[in-house]
């Protein structure tokens, strides 16, 4: 007899782990996977956000407040003279901001600055002349002087003193690199020239894109905002660093939160795996516990034992998970870049940064998941009356009891009800609560479901002994079945839900792509090279073989400085090829208002529907009416379509970036491509990308698959964890039932029949688990499709079921659990029958 109970606990834990290492390893892995995924997503996103924020603030030069153009059309420069005189404004720096391309095709942000104002407001944007101190400095204001950040210099393969042709806003100009920008953060590509030069050289006379403001020392930004508010024209907005931060956060928030939630669901699955492992191990050790109880160990001791066991598994899992997560994040950043393949953050690869607070958080979650999963078995183990438990290790539910479905039903109702609640801060938090409730409802309902599903089979007895035995066993011990199944049900449900959602999404995108890619050929000009002017458009339309050609332009517009920019799509809107594919009805024209069409995400972001009026930063005081809503899966931040004629009239900007071409039936696509290239403006001829719809479609779908790469990975892990759960559960239950097998042998059941019985049991378990999991998964997928997706990504879709995958999952589960049950049974029945029965003293 041990000298003290804690020593006994140590032995029990160590003994259990020595005897059944596989089981505990599985629990550890489950926890580790959940922690790793959550932590990795957090790290990647944190690093990417930092990098993105840095990129934004680099170009902004850390001004206190900014007036920004809502689109790349800029706003009237006269605002500068008025703003600088506003009370509370210490200084103001006007900025022309252009996307520029160097001669070797590398792009950078070209800022036109008044160096005197910038020196006060945004000193990090000031250049250092290469010639050092002393000497003539006309070059500061010289019309062709260009100062480049180190990254821009390297990318453009230039050196100080060198001459380079810079393309921006459709103009090519020769500039001389006069020096560096020592204040620009590492890796950022920025160029600075004089504002007057930028305006003149790149066709921006009269327009500026930004005014950076420095405020008086103890002036509140709000005070100044109130004063400059009335001066701000329709084409500009006021924002500050917080808005920039909110904007970059908003860009990736939905994506990030969804992945984190998926990681938490993985952790949740881990909890069920720990639960099922621990339940089995408690069941098997009930006799040992009973013995300890009779020897004086208190109930608390048993609870402590099982919880500590789970906690240890959680501890190891969480530590492993953090390490794994860090590795995963590092790998993902290298392979998929900081946006996890979603294409949100552009091409700057962020540096990975360890996040100690997040690490502590996920560590705690991992341990909590394991402890939580152990708590119920611990309580069960402690509750068992020592005298009964000493004799029996069976199911604590009496086969004759009626099982009630009250709690699961309540959870189900709550889950469905929660799904209808609105998003919080544009995050579908209730959607996830709903998913968790549905999952919990399904798992708690398992005993009842197992018995309900089996009851028709129970009534149809009399085929053969192993099958009858198997059915009777499962029917009689639904809790044991449920324990075996909860892990697999959770992981199957999760996986099917994700698969249904992704399938539906991909299907919807595919349909949408075939709708929008109606042209025969798409022509795209590289940004920064000016696109097609009116003359070029005419030449292109006259190219032999071209039936019709539709030009369009995409202009980023900022409607709210804390929101990412939307896209204003300028294209002909009309009949035939120019028709928009609308959702719902179109509103007729209204006199005095310009018709625009919102994309589906834009309607949600702006809270506007067809028939509503909206404000756009073009055309001064023009009024705009939402004439209709169209489906768009490519611009999550929203897009607005305006007819070319209206845009031309309002802005006078006639240049276009892209074109879609319908060919004459007899035209040769290769000839047309060559002719189009020849008819394009000279600077553009080598900078045109032409693609056929098939290529574009493949490209779009590959982007889609890339952005869902991480969810595929998660699905694979869910399946592996689920199947591994089946295997260990089967072996645990088989070894717990040695005495039963011995008894069956005694009454004349053959070894083969027992193994067959176990096989049928396994198959039935797999079938039940698969069916329930798939059903639950489809239910959860509806929450993902109709609640979580619209709330976080602003788009809707119709459900498409991956029937083949669902069937395969069920078959795989049946086969895997039958096979593992038989393998486990083979070992269990190999023991001598007499000894097996004797074990029941």
């Amino acid at each position, binding site marked *: 007899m041990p000298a003290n109970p804690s020593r006994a606990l140590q032995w029990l834990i160590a003994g259990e782990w020595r005897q059944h290492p596989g089981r505990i390893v599985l629990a550890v892995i489950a926890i580790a996977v959940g922690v790793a995924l959550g932590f990795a997503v957090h790290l990647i996103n944190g690093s990417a956000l930092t990098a993105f924020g840095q990129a934004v603030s680099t170009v902004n030069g850390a001004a206190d407040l900014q007036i920004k153009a809502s689109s790349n059309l800029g706003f009237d420069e006269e605002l500068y003279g008025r703003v600088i*005189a506003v009370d509370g404004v210490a200084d103001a720096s006007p900025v022309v901001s252009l996307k520029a391309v160097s001669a070797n095709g590398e792009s950078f942000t070209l800022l036109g600055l008044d160096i005197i104002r910038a*020196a006060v407001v945004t000193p990090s944007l000031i250049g250092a002349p290469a010639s050092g101190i002393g000497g*003539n400095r006309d070059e500061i204001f010289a019309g062709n002087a260009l100062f480049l950040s180190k990254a821009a210099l390297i990318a453009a393969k230039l050196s100080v003193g060198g001459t380079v042709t810079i393309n921006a806003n459709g103009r090519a100009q020769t500039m001389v690199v006069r020096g560096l920008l*020592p204040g620009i953060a590492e890796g950022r590509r920025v160029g600075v020239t004089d504002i007057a030069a930028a305006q003149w050289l790149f066709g921006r006379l009269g327009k500026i894109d930004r005014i950076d403001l420095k405020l008086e020392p103890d002036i509140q930004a709000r005070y100044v905002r109130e004063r400059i508010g009335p001066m701000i024209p329709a084409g500009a907005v006021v924002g500050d660093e917080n808005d920039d931060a909110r904007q970059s956060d908003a860009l990736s928030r939905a994506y990030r939160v969804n992945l984190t939630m998926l990681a938490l669901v993985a952790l949740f699955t881990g909890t069920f795996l720990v639960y099922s492992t621990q339940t089995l191990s408690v069941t098997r050790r009930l006799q040992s516990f009973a013995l300890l109880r009779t020897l004086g160990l208190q109930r608390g001791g048993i609870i402590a034992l099982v919880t500590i066991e789970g906690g240890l598994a959680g501890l190891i899992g969480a530590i492993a998970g953090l390490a794994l997560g860090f590795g995963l994040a590092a790998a993902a950043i290298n392979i998929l870049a900081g946006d996890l393949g979603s294409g949100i953050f552009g091409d700057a690869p962020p540096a990975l940064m360890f996040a100690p607070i997040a690490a502590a958080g996920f560590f705690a979650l991992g341990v909590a998941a394991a402890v939580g999963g152990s708590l119920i078995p611990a309580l069960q183990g402690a509750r068992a009356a020592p005298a009964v438990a000493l004799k029996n290790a069976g199911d604590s539910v009496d086969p004759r009891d009626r099982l009630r479905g009250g709690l699961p039903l309540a959870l189900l109702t709550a889950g469905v009800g929660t799904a209808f609640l609105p998003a919080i801060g544009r995050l579908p938090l209730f959607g996830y609560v709903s998913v968790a409730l549905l999952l919990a409802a399904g798992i708690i309902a398992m005993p009842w479901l197992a018995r309900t599903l089996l009851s028709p089979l129970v009534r149809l007895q009399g085929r053969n002994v192993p099958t009858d035995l198997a059915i009777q066993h499962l029917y009689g011990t639904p809790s044991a079945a449920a324990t075996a199944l909860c892990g697999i049900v959770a992981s199957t449900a999760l996986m099917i839900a994700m698969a249904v959602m992704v399938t539906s999404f991909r299907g919807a995108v595919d349909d949408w792509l075939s709708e929008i890619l109606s042209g025969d050929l798409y022509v795209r000009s590289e940004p920064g090279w000016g696109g097609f002017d009116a003359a070029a458009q005419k030449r292109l339309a006259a190219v032999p073989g071209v039936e019709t050609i539709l030009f369009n332009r995409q202009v980023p517009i900022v409607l709210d400085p804390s929101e990412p920019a939307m896209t204003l799509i300028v294209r002909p809107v009309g009949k035939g090829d120019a028709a928009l594919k609308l959702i719902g009805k179109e509103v007729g024209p209204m006199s005095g208002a310009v018709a625009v069409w919102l994309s589906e995400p834009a309607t949600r972001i702006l809270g506007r529907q067809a028939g509503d009026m909206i404000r756009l930063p073009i055309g001064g005081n023009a009024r705009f009416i939402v004439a209709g809503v169209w489906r768009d899966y490519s611009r999550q931040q929203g897009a607005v379509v305006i007819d070319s004629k209206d845009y031309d009239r309002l802005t006078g900007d006639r240049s276009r970036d892209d074109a879609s071409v319908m060919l004459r039936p007899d035209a040769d696509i290769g000839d047309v491509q060559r002719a189009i290239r020849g008819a394009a403006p000279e600077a553009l001829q080598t900078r045109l990308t032409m693609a056929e719809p098939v290529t574009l479609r493949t490209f779009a779908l590959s982007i889609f698959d890339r952005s869902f790469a991480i969810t595929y990975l998660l699905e694979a892990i869910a399946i592996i964890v689920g199947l591994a759960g089946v295997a260990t559960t089967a072996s645990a239950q088989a070894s717990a039932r040695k005495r039963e097998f011995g008894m069956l042998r005694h009454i004349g059941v053959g070894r083969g029949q027992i193994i067959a019985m176990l096989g049928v049991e396994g198959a039935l378990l797999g079938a039940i688990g698969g069916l329930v999991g798939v059903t639950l998964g489809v239910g959860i997928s509806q929450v993902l499709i109709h609640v979580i997706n619209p709330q976080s990504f602003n788009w809707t879709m119709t459900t498409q079921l991956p029937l083949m995958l669902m069937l395969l999952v069920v078959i795989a589960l049946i086969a895997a659990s039958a096979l593992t049950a038989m393998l486990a049974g083979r070992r269990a029945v190999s023991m001598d029958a007499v000894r097996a029965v004797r074990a029941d003293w």
Partner: protein
Amino acid sequence: MIRSIYLGLALFALSTATIAQTPGAYYPDVKPGRAFVFPKDHGAHPDFRTEWWYVTGAVKSNKGKELGFQITFFRTRPRVDAQNPSKFAPQQVLFAHAAVSDPAVGKLLHDQRAARSGFGIAEAKIGDADVRIKDWRFVRLADGRFAAKIKAQGFTLDLVFTPKQPPILQGEGGYSRKGSDPRSASYYYSLPQLATTGTITRGTSTERITGRSWLDREWSSRYLGGTAVGWDWTGLNFDDGSALMAFRIRGKDSNTLWAGGTFRRANGTTVTLKPNDVRFTPMRTWRSKRTGAKYPVAQTLTITLSEGQKRLTLTPMFADQELDARSSGLPVYWEGLVRTQGGRGYLELTGYAAPLAM
């Protein structure tokens, strides 16, 4: 900091390009024999490369304190493409700085402004004195008085200057040579003995001040030539109504390359001082801990008049009157309130921290 230094030097050098880099007729040359017309010449001469309105004053506050102040507006015309129609084109760039000398503070209070002309932010008017950068302004009022309003960091100056004497045309009728090359020169006139009243506000305390000031007006397209690195300059208002301006252009080893000046007697007659008539002799130097520059802050100024030599001791009110205006595009120099026998004025020492490429 480094950046603002770069900028400062860059802009200053820009306002003062070397002769070698000033080919052709981009900027007009300064030539002798120009007729001065007032008030027109109080206004800007935008074709010339550099121009300044330079007010220094020695005043007494109503609390009995002796104070000095300096208000300077510089105009410079960068070499830019005149074709550029952009309103931002830096056809003219204006700088200003202001400083208050208070022996009780022991160093200069100073602030600066800079801007390219346009958008109503900065302008130097043609036709009469009216220069403005944001909320700083120096203007000639309708009644012939001048006024300055300077709202600076740490102090506010609100001053009115009443001319009591006609302008002194420096050098040969306003043509002031700065070196052996006759093209190295400026148009230069001064308004000494300006009766000065107004207020100076520091923090929440406003003091009324009265005293005498000196306005220097100079414009040029090339100032320093050859090996010149800087200058010593002084403008002194004497209690008897007489006034003295004297300068010397220094070479590398503090040797005098050129010198000149004008003494106007109390009776109104003026004496033009030739290079040999002016001698600056350092008496005491002070070393700036900020910049490391060594300034001869106390000097003996000897001028030769028809009645013989006149020795004046220039004693600074306090040593640290160094002005570091690099962040606004001007160099580091010493501009200090000095006392002399029977008068007060300002001493200016440039090119001691680094050579001026003027």
